[in-house]
């Protein structure tokens, strides 16, 4: 167990593994997304209440789902940074924060556009929407704080603390639709219950969620590799890699 943990902390080892995984993550992820979105847009039946506007769900739910789980992953990595001082955990946080910000923005944007034909308004200051907006600002804060402190160790610690403080927002987002009165509909997928929609709707949705997860994995590997190259530029293995003509 400790050996695996130790290996995981080695940037060189991670770099190699990431290079092997990346083509799989990208192509399988793209295939799943194309299948899920194509099925959802053209073949899934219409919603009896919302008409065709509900087809936005096939990108709204994956974006919102990922936006929150990326933050949870960052929180775990932040804890690892603080407790074990593992460099790779900080590399992860710095690499995925912009991805999380883009996904949160997409969840908000697609939600607003979906809200117009469904609720009659682009925006409302209710619990779910406001807590998602706070998540976006948290991502911005993490990116800005990481960029503002040039010392690697202080930056890693400060960012980890900020990420861990912000994690309180995640259960608020998740349960906001149950705790408060809101226009937002309850969760589509629950671990304990069967989905409330027919299979022709939830199967393509599941495909696009899985696809986006894999594409996120690809982006993470790519961005972590870049961050590692910058940080480890003086080490022998990076010099050898550069000389071997990698790009």
């Amino acid at each position, binding site marked *: 167990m400790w050996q695996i943990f130790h290996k995981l902390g080695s940037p060189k080892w991670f770099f190699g593994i990431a290079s092997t995984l990346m083509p799989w993550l990208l192509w399988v992820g793209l295939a799943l997304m194309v299948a899920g979105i194509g099925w959802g847009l053209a073949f899934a039946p219409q919603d009896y209440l919302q008409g065709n*506007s509900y087809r*936005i769900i096939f990108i709204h739910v994956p974006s919102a789902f990922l936006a929150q789980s990326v933050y949870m992953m960052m929180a775990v990595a932040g804890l690892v940074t603080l407790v074990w001082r593992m460099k790779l955990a900080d590399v992860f946080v710095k690499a995925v924060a912009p991805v999380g910000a883009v996904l949160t923005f997409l969840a908000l944007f697609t939600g607003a*556009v*979906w809200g117009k034909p469904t609720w009659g308004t682009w925006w409302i200051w209710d619990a779910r929407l406001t807590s998602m907006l706070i998540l976006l600002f948290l991502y911005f804060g993490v990116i800005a704080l990481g960029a503002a402190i040039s010392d690697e160790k202080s930056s890693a610690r400060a960012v980890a603390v900020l990420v861990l403080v912000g994690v309180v927002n995640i259960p608020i987002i998740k349960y906001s639709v149950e705790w408060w009165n809101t226009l937002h509909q309850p969760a589509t997928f629950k671990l304990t219950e069967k989905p409330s929609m027919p299979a022709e709707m939830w199967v393509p949705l599941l495909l696009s969620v899985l696809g986006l997860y894999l594409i996120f994995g690809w982006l993470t590997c790519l*961005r972590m590799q870049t961050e590692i190259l910058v940080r480890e530029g003086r080490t022998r293995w990076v010099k050898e890699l550069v000389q071997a003509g990698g790009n």
Partner: protein
Amino acid sequence: MAFDSFGAFIVMEGHGPYVWACYFMFFLLMGALALWSLRQRRSVFAQQRRRMNSAPARDQSPAGASFTRIEPSHD
């Protein structure tokens, strides 16, 4: 197919603009993020290569450590 024709698919009974605006934004931003990340990695590699080619002598000299920070381009 849930629609009778391609035209009906595009119009989506009036919801077309909303649906297509969302999909456009999604692919635009995810595509831009992927391209930006790819270019960032490429520019870091190029920068490392330039540095190694321009200063091979300095690397071997016994002079003290130098702290050149590599800034990846953010374009």
